[in-house]
């Protein structure tokens, strides 16, 4: 079984996408010659040429707008936003254009646009290059928001996103690029649904992106202590498939939600609110949230470590919950 990293898996999906449809092109800052600030697009320029793989000036509104406008005319752009923090410089094109045009125009247009971007802390990039902003995107009706936790899903979700006729923001966590797992060579797709990473009967841990590995680590520790945790990777913020989660909590009666984003108004609030609403009678304890504190991401290792949720913090929450 071939194991490759998430970076390699994404690169492979990009190659397959460009190879399969002449409507697909990809552009962004430093993606062609340099192979991407995220280092995911190496080889594309050489294999598909400068018409379909090109660098843009530093102007994120124009980059996303290039995607929106060309998607309206049936191309299938894959635009790269090197850091999700740069939502700041192109937010209108996402909030008011990509997400709204179809609805506002009464369903008249398709917008098969993918925006690949990178999120997350842990590498000392500081407050403006380390954010997790999926909740902000999740609050905007009209876009898909995908957030893979591993190489296999990254490849499968990205290919599905390219076939989607709606705008998709595809969020890659920087700390995951090097993580490896089994990834089939042939093309495949993943659904926009929850993935049960591990089954268990005592508690449900709902999470996504880099926190999935932390949750699995916590689950291993718990196992030794005789607690069977079910770990659910939601994979997709929008659409948000609730059923798997609700069914699980109905079974376990306990839930912990974990994400790296700041706690306040984070997507964990949505998940917890949904669980208590739909599985209230099954719940034996309140749903607890594990999240970053409500401060910007600090630079120093000690501070960033203190900032980041991890398996111990998940473990602690699980224990409080099961007390």
């Amino acid at each position, binding site marked *: 079984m071939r194991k490759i990293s998430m970076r390699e898996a994404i690169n492979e999906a990009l190659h397959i996408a460009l190879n*399969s449809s002449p409507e697909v092109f990809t552009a962004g800052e430093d993606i062609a010659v340099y192979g991407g600030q995220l280092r995911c697009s190496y080889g594309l320029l050489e294999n598909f040429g400068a018409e379909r793989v090109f660098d843009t000036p530093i*102007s994120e509104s124009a980059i996303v707008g*290039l995607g929106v*406008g060309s998607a309206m005319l049936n191309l*299938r752009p894959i635009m790269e936003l090197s850091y999700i923090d740069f939502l700041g410089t192109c937010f209108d*094109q996402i909030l008011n254009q990509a997400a709204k045009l179809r609805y506002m125009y009464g369903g008249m247009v398709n917008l098969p646009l993918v925006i690949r971007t990178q999120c997350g802390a842990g590498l000392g990039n500081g407050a403006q290059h380390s954010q997790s902003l999926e909740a902000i995107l999740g609050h905007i009706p009209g876009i898909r928001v995908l957030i893979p936790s591993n190489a296999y899903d990254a490849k499968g979700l990205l290919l599905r996103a390219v076939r989607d006729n709606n705008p998709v923001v595809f969020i890659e966590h920087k700390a995951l690029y090097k993580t490896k797992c089994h990834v089939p060579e042939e093309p495949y797709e993943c659904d926009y649904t929850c993935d049960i990473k591990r089954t268990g009967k005592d508690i449900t841990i709902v999470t996504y992106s880099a926190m999935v590995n932390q949750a699995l680590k916590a689950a291993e520790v718990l196992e030794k202590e005789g607690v069977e945790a079910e770990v659910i990777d939601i994979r997709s913020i929008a659409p948000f498939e609730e059923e798997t989660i609700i069914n699980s909590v109905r079974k376990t009666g306990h839930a912990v939600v974990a994400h790296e984003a700041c706690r306040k108004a984070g997507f964990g609030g949505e998940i917890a609110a949904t669980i208590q609403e739909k599985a209230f009678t099954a719940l034996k304890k309140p749903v607890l949230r594990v999240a970053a504190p409500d401060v910007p991401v600090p630079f120093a290792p000690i501070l960033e470590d203190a900032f980041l949720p991890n398996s111990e913090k998940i473990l602690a929450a699980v224990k409080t919950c099961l007390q």
Partner: protein
Amino acid sequence: MFVLCKHSKKLKDLPGNLKIKQNSLSIGIIVASDYQHQKVFDKTIIRKRVEIKMTLLSKEQLINFYRKMNRIRAFENEAIELAKMNLTRAAIHTYNGQEAIAVGVCAHLKEGDYITSTHRGHGHCIAKGADLERMFAELMGRKTGYCKGKGGSMHIADLSIGMLGANGIVGGGIPIATGAAFALKYKQTDNVVVCFFGDGASNQGSFHEALNLASVKKLPVIFLCENNNWAISMNIGKSVNIENISERAAAYGIKGLTVDGNDIAQVYREFGNCLEEVRQGTGPVLLEMKTYRLSGHYFGDNENYRSKEEVISRRQECPITRLENLLIQEYGVLPDELKAIASEEKAMVLEASNKAKLAPEPQAEDLWNDLFAQDFENITWQPFVKS
């Protein structure tokens, strides 16, 4: 830069055999290139070489323009009536005074060309051939409207006629137009996009980013700035420190041009010249058309930021009146003929409005439709084998 003929006597270096029409529209025009300083309207021009080009528009063409300009004016006036009757909601931004631009520009466009528009988009839609009844229905939030009542006045689109949509965000359409132009180039067509926006929009970051990107990618897009002197209450003299918005073209190494947007003949000709170049792949152009917003920013505007006198004096330059004068004085058209055309258009507009009034409203459940395309594209994934 193009000169109104009435100033032609001030020019030096004119070839002797030049015959210049002294009417109020530049039907015969002097083309000045390689100039150093330039002003439009009633200021002098200094230049080095002067080249002469005579273009005569046929009576039929001009009458056709007159018809469409009246159609737009009648539409807007009727829209205001609907607003007064509370059949529309929120702001109606009328195009009164700017009709020559949409009509002169869209007259050139062919199948496969696209336009993008703004909050002040009715004129662009009509000039591009939109259905009036569906437009009115949209203004009144009816199910038969262009957007099934979901969009309203500021958000009309009709992809089937090449209208990529109006936009309520000032400057929001400029990057989108650029993206559409990219698609046209990518598909190796000779089609173009015309991106309409206002003087106010030219101060948005999106303007800058899009023009630069279009320039370095040599995209087939004409950035068409309708400089109507005002951005709500902000006078152009206070929002920029330059004489002509077209001067901004230099920042991107593209061609920039300012023309009199109230002169349909000039609009038609100069846009045509730009279009020809852009179709040939020379990259984008920034084309400024100077005009004047004759009505309030929206229906209901108190217009406390400008004097009645200013508006009255600018009414003299109303593009419809100017075209009327030209047709009567130079082409021997009878005033009654023109009145008849105007009445025909008005009648057609009213009929569309009346039909639209009878159209059904959407149902509450429609709220849930039209957000997402339900299908996935049919692509067969081809593994990429690295060599």
